[in-house]
């Protein structure tokens, strides 16, 4: 079936003409009265205007957050958890509507937003509603009369800047732990994909006390920078690329506040020879694992964009993998049969094509794909790219940079040591995949690969309660797990003497 395009008669999604900021529980027009056009990558056409925020709007949002922080921080964890659970419930009741919006805003297939983005985002709120109930400090008796208490406190007001590849899910990853821990938030959505977050807050915003969650839209330089640089935030969280990550750390150093950063990767997907030992379900699972580079059009920080295949099976495995990958072609993102949607923006598509160009200039062999796809009709100007498979070697730029498109670069390895060496020959270390029938290989190689997560005989699973974050240039912090609460908390130590007698010092 095909969902009706937003703003058309009969669609689940009818956007207003424009979205303002969401500050202190209200819709607030931008201080300078300016808006920008938000384009749907499905059609390449604008569909809504979005507030173009500036530092005045950021200050207003920070005012609201600071006014709310004492009461929210003092709200019992049980009450905060209840609100997060209610947010999850409302999202679940509106799952289809939010999924259609997310697809329209980002270009990803509705099949994924219905089955992954929304269910995962919903579960994320429930997960942090759960873990905050069990979160506790510690107490230790240092001697018979001296006790040290460690009490978790919220940081206060935090700034969060989120990316465009999973707009609602990335918002959930950042908001759920921050709110659960008792912080007030000023959130800046990506300028490519602000619409579904604003639709989301129009559904759930009333569940939170005023000022606890504030959303300021706009461009990075105009709205993101004043947020990241503000002395009025106690922490900044950012998902994006390395140079902005460095810039955000510099801003944070001005205010001596912590940062968490998720900055991407160039994830290896390692296939050992024994995956081909049997012609069985597991072999098919591994072949499917190769095709995971197409998930979300490759616009995933952990896209398995380097496939490393053991030499003895290289040709046979790759032939089968390419044959299987050829079955996936871009299509209408609102059609439930579509597995590959649109790239999120025109510049993203152009960037992918520029990498396909340099890959060929460097001598990589284009095994399939390599071009923009025109789908005709209403979708003619949407941003569609054919799944692309390169063969080459690990020093090529298509093996070293996250292209953020449905592009995988394939090479071979000889043995375990070679696989580990190639896997680690990258600046990044966010995700990795490993496919083998040998538990010994799986553990040894999995431990040796320098990546925050090594999917073993699976890929692209993002459940709450599995820590996600990077080694090396991929960033700082671990999301998706209760340990993320620690990144949104301060530790208060009360060191108490129960001895009534003087210490005898003076």
């Amino acid at each position: 079936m095909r969902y009706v395009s937003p703003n058309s008669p009969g669609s689940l999604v009818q956007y207003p003409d424009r979205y303002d900021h969401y500050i202190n529980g209200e819709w607030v027009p931008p201080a300078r009265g300016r808006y920008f056009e938000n384009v749907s990558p499905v059609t390449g056409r604008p569909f809504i205007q979005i507030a173009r925020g500036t530092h005045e709007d950021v200050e207003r949002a920070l005012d609201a957050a600071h006014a709310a922080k004492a009461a929210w921080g003092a709200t019992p964890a049980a009450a905060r958890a209840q609100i997060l659970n209610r947010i999850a419930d409302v999202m679940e009741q509106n799952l289809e509507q939010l999924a259609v919006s997310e697809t329209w805003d980002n270009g990803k297939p509705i099949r994924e937003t219905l089955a992954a983005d929304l269910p995962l985002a919903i579960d994320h709120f429930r997960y942090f509603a759960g873990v905050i109930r069990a979160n506790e400090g510690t107490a230790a008796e240092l001697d018979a009369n001296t006790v040290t208490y460690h009490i978790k406190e919220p940081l206060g007001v935090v700034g969060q800047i989120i990316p465009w590849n999973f707009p609602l899910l990335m918002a959930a990853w950042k908001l759920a732990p921050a709110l659960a821990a008792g912080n007030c938030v000023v959130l800046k959505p990506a300028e490519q994909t602000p619409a579904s977050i604003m639709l989301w807050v129009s559904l759930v915003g009333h569940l939170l006390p005023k000022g606890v969650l504030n959303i300021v839209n706009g461009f990075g330089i105009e709205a993101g920078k004043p947020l990241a640089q503000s002395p009025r935030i106690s922490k900044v969280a950012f998902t994006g690329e390395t140079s902005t990550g460095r810039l955000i750390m510099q801003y944070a150093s001005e205010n001596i506040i912590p940062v968490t950063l998720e900055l991407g990767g160039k994830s290896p997907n390692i296939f050992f020879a024994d995956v081909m030992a049997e012609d069985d379900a597991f072999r098919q699972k591994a072949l499917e694992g190769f095709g995971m580079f197409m998930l979300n059009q490759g616009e995933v920080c952990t896209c398995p964009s380097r496939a490393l295949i053991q030499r003895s099976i290289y040709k046979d495995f790759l032939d089968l993998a390419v044959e299987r990958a050829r079955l996936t072609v871009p299509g209408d993102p609102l059609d439930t049969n579509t597995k590959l949607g649109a790239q999120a923006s025109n510049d993203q598509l152009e960037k992918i094509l520029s990498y396909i160009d340099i890959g060929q200039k460097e001598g990589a062999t284009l095994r399939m794909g390599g071009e923009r796809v025109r789908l005709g009709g209403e979708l003619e100007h949407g941003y569609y790219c054919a799944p692309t498979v390169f063969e080459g070697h690990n020093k090529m730029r298509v093996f070293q940079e996250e292209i953020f498109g449905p592009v995988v670069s394939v090479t071979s390895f000889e043995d375990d040591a070679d696989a580990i060496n190639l896997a680690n020959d990258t600046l990044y270390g966010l995700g990795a995949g490993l496919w083998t029938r040998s538990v010994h290989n799986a553990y040894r190689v999995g431990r040796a690969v320098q990546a925050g997560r090594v999917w073993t005989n699976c890929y692209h699973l993002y459940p709450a309660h599995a820590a996600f974050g990077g080694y090396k240039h991929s960033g700082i912090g671990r999301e998706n797990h209760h340990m993320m609460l620690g990144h949104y908390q301060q530790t208060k130590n009360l060191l108490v003497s129960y001895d009534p007698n003087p210490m005898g010092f003076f």
Partner: protein
Amino acid sequence: MSTLPDQGFSQVSVTDAAAALIRRLVLDHGPVMFFQSGGCCDGSAPMCWPKGEFRLGERDVRLGVIEGAEYWIGGDQYERWAHTRLVLDVVPGRGAGFSLEAPEGVRFIIRSELCSLEELTALNNTPLPRGGDAR
């Protein structure tokens, strides 16, 4: 920042359209600089910031100067890019990060060429300046 030594060979060039955009941005924002990003989302994209906005690291490498703007890349990333030349271009788009051109509805983008043997030899003889050289 003090001045860096003259650079014999520039590893970055600029299209006419991108040059015109740089001139326009300089009118609005004053002198600008570029830094080549890596990683996800808008990784591998050029970032254009007000000159001096970004504190350069010792090992950052200056690929060249285009329209009066220095173009830098991280030292580790340069090692993996050293065999290519960049051409700064511009396309319609939405931008991201804190790059100055995003509100204009356009995005800087890089296209890449392989360095010739002569260019690689020139680079080998006269390595590009590093951030630390200017201190």
